[in-house]
């Protein structure tokens, strides 16, 4: 079958045809025409950028019937033979399979004979990085001072594997990755020549996928053309190439920000069923979030060179409500989880778990926002006009993101009023610790005007205790005592308080409390009473009760004794004693 893929059919035959490597082709053609061509040239660069091609063209340049010329005729015997790959004086050696020192020795033996019918005898060693150390060393002498009729051309993708002794004897030319636009333009030219109709956007898609290599691009183009019968649509290209549709990336980041886990599961499933490569998708996802972060930091006018303008706008819209630290967190998790996707036997599951993890991220406040909040608290300005339900908007827009997936969907219970406890204010997850007896109909406005804020306790009028419940009074009292006497505060930590109108307060402490002895001292009791009176600014009758917890020790003993005698009398135990001729050593009650 005489079918040739595009990459071979359209292999450039002159320096002008080589795409985007002018810095090499120009140098080489000048060298040829001015007669300053080095005897050993090393071409390096990523796959599919034109190393072998340039080596062959250079061979033609020096061996053409019009030599030396920078534009070989491609018609003379030498040129046609080189194109066909059967030239007598051009040896194209596969360095990877002929990598032994014997092969190089043979080459050295033959190098000293004159070429058959051309000016030069040319050795093109492709994949030269695979030569063994011995082979490289055997090459050194002949490479340094070859016979005048010999030219060495080396091509490799991995220049770092080549010994420096070889490198220093060669003129080195590095080929670059080819830009998306240049690949697309080249493919467009070929398509026009082949009478194939394909949109510019489609070509850009293919070029993007080629990742800097013209051969990859042409292979993909070939594939697209073979697989479609009629006109080539962009959708078909996406389907054939397995390109991740950009829209999917936006869908998934949107779903993540709005906490829509079901949508994410659905997308993962879709990608899996289409046989998409999960790792590839993951890489694109990371890049997408990186782009989002850049847009967040720089705005839509940022220098995201390979993202079209409309996508940048879309990105800006999407990150409008998201804080920068949140994006950092997302990216961090994505990087942390990368190995799982890579190593997992079922990458889809790993991907889903990563998203579950991303969903759990509590959006962090930026440090600035936190400091600002603290400042407001300090100056006594209301931190927020109202108690917030999860997802209610914060004063500054940067903090107004919806909390992704509150794990237990809480009905929007109002946050308990704050009691001068700064820490409970700072995160949006404070609804997690509501006081159990907190009344739901407590007027929210009381929070900012809270008299118990530590800054202004002295000017407050006596509190209206009947308006509050026990838990609340107790909390305030405790924090006040803690401030004045930390030791007493610690003793009271586990107690409970009961307020009986009009003026009776009962503090209950469990008898098992470790500091109970301390509390029984007269001095301490008096101290507590004094604190209470100071705190409430009204005469109150205060009593401290010690609550008996746990069963009565006497009862327990009695019960144990009963159990023991029961065990002794058990027929099974008696039988065992009899059989083994044993005695009862100890009885343990479990």
């Amino acid at each position: 079958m005489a079918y040739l893929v595009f990459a071979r059919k359209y292999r450039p035959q002159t320096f002008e045809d080589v795409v985007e490597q002018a810095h090499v082709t120009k140098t080489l053609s000048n060298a040829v025409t001015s007669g300053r061509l080095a005897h050993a040239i090393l071409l390096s660069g990523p796959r599919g950028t034109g190393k072998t091609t340039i080596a062959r063209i250079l061979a033609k340049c020096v061996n053409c019937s019009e030599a030396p010329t920078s534009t070989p005729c491609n018609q003379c015997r030498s040129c046609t033979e080189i194109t066909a790959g059967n030239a007598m004086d051009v040896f194209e050696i596969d360095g990877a399979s002929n990598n032994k020192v014997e092969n190089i020795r043979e080459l050295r033996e033959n190098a000293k004979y004159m070429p058959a019918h051309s000016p030069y005898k040319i050795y093109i060693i492709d994949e030269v990085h695979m030569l063994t150390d011995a082979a490289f060393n055997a090459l050194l002498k002949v490479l340094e001072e070859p016979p005048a009729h010999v030219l060495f051309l080396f091509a490799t993708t991995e220049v770092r594997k080549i010994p420096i002794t070889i490198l220093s004897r060669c003129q080195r030319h590095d080929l670059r990755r080819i830009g998306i636009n240049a690949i697309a333009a080249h493919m467009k030219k070929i398509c026009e020549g082949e009478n194939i109709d394909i949109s510019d956007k489609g070509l850009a898609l293919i070029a993007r996928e080629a990742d800097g290599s013209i051969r990859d691009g042409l292979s993909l183009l070939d594939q697209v053309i073979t697989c479609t019968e009629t006109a080539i649509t962009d959708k078909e290209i996406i389907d054939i190439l397995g390109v991740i549709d950009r829209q999917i990336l936006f869908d998934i980041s949107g779903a993540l920000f709005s906490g829509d886990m079901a949508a994410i599961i659905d997308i993962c499933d879709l990608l899996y069923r289409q046989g998409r490569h999960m790792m590839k998708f993951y890489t694109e996802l990371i890049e997408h979030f990186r782009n989002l972060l850049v847009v967040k930091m720089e705005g839509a006018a940022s220098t995201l060179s390979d993202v079209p303008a409309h996508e940048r706008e879309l990105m800006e819209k999407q990150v409008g409500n998201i804080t920068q630290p949140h994006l950092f967190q997302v990216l961090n998790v994505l990087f942390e989880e990368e190995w799982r996707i890579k190593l997992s036997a079922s990458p889809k599951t790993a991907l889903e778990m990563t998203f579950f993890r991303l969903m759990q991220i509590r959006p962090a406040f930026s440090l600035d926002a936190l400091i600002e909040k603290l400042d407001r608290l300090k100056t006594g300005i209301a931190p927020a006009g109202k108690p917030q339900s999860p997802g209610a908007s914060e004063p500054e827009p940067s903090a107004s993101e919806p909390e992704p997936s509150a794990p237990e969907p809480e009905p929007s219970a109002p946050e308990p009023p704050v009691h001068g406890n700064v820490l409970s204010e700072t995160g949006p997850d404070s609804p997690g610790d509501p006081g159990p007896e907190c009344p739901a109909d407590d007027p929210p406005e009381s929070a900012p005007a809270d008299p118990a804020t530590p800054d202004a306790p002295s000017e407050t009028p006596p509190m209206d205790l009947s308006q509050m419940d026990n838990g609340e009074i107790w909390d305030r009292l405790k924090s006040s005592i803690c401030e004045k006497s930390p030791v007493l505060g610690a003793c009271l930590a586990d107690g409970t308080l009961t307020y009986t109108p009009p003026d009776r307060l009962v503090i209950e402490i469990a008898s098992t409390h470790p500091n109970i002895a301390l509390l029984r001292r007269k001095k301490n009791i008096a101290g507590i009473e004094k604190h209470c009176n100071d705190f409430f600014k009204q005469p109150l009758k205060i009593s401290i009760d010690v609550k008996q917890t746990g069963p009565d020790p006497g009862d327990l003993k009695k019960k144990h004794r009963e159990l023991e005698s029961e065990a002794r009398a058990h027929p099974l135990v008696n039988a065992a004693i009899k059989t083994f001729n044993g005695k009862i050593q100890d009885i343990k009650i479990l």
Partner: protein
Amino acid sequence: MSTSNRSRLGKRATGFDAIIGQQRQIRMLAAALQKKEVPHAMLFTGEAGIGKKTTAIHFAMACNCGHPMPMAGGFVFSGSVNPCGECRPCRKIASGNHPDVYHIQPPGATIKIEQIRTLCSALSLRPHEALLRIVLLSDAHLMNAEAGNALLKVLEEPPEKTVFILTAPEAADILPTIVSRCRHLRFNPIPEDQLEAYLVEKRGMPPENAMIIASMANGSIGRALSICDDDWILLHRRRVIEQMEIIFRKPAGRDLHFAEMLAQDRKKLRFSLEIMKSWLRDLAVSRYFPEKVCNRDIRSRLAALSRTVDMDGLIEKTDAVWQAERAITANANARLAIEAMMMRLSE
């Protein structure tokens, strides 16, 4: 090729239509054949056991078949490119006896450079009888660096009438210089419903078992068949899931005998961890999207349980299973790794 392999291939060979779940890929191959634009090198990627090699062998048959038949309906191309499976070349290829179909596979852990050198010298001769000579290089990711590089030149410009087909799990596992020389064809995991239908129809399996196996197979028919052959797996799966439910209902540190049971058999262990992971995943998914769970037979139990667990804990527990799996792959003491996992699971 071993005899068991031969007989299996022989049984499967009934044209492209017998390959399930890869219609898109087969359509591409058929189109290339039809247009006579077969590329000289192709790379088939996809998980193990989803039909890459089978497709490659059928493609070789289609290239050389004496009496190609039209494709079944549903294809854009109606040309006769379907191998008949009965002519001489077809039977020779199916039985692995064709002189011009080379099958290179790793003899041990890697494909060695000697195999590639032998291949290169064989390729320098003309084909014996084939219209198109096929080189099937399975598990190309197992080529060592020397072998891979030795293949580069012949892969870029092979002799006439020669087509290379490489198979690998992922393109990223192979030298980029090789990938760039091939036309890349991704094989997708076989959809569960097709796998299920296959198991019921071709293997005579009861539908409820087929459903479970299809969901465990991860879209791989090879894996599904190997699960079918080992009848302990279904029973084992039930036990593992029951134990996991117990651990989640009342977490207690008493599950070390379960850990012991798991750690006893290394082969089972791999499956057990897979089962746990998919079960934990389902537990998480069940809260948001109950239709998408894998273990469909226990859907209601999952839904009930998922209401009681919290997400952070679940992620933590999934992580425990991952860590254990990683440790075991790194050759840690299985018993200790599993016990550590159990401790974290029952926290």
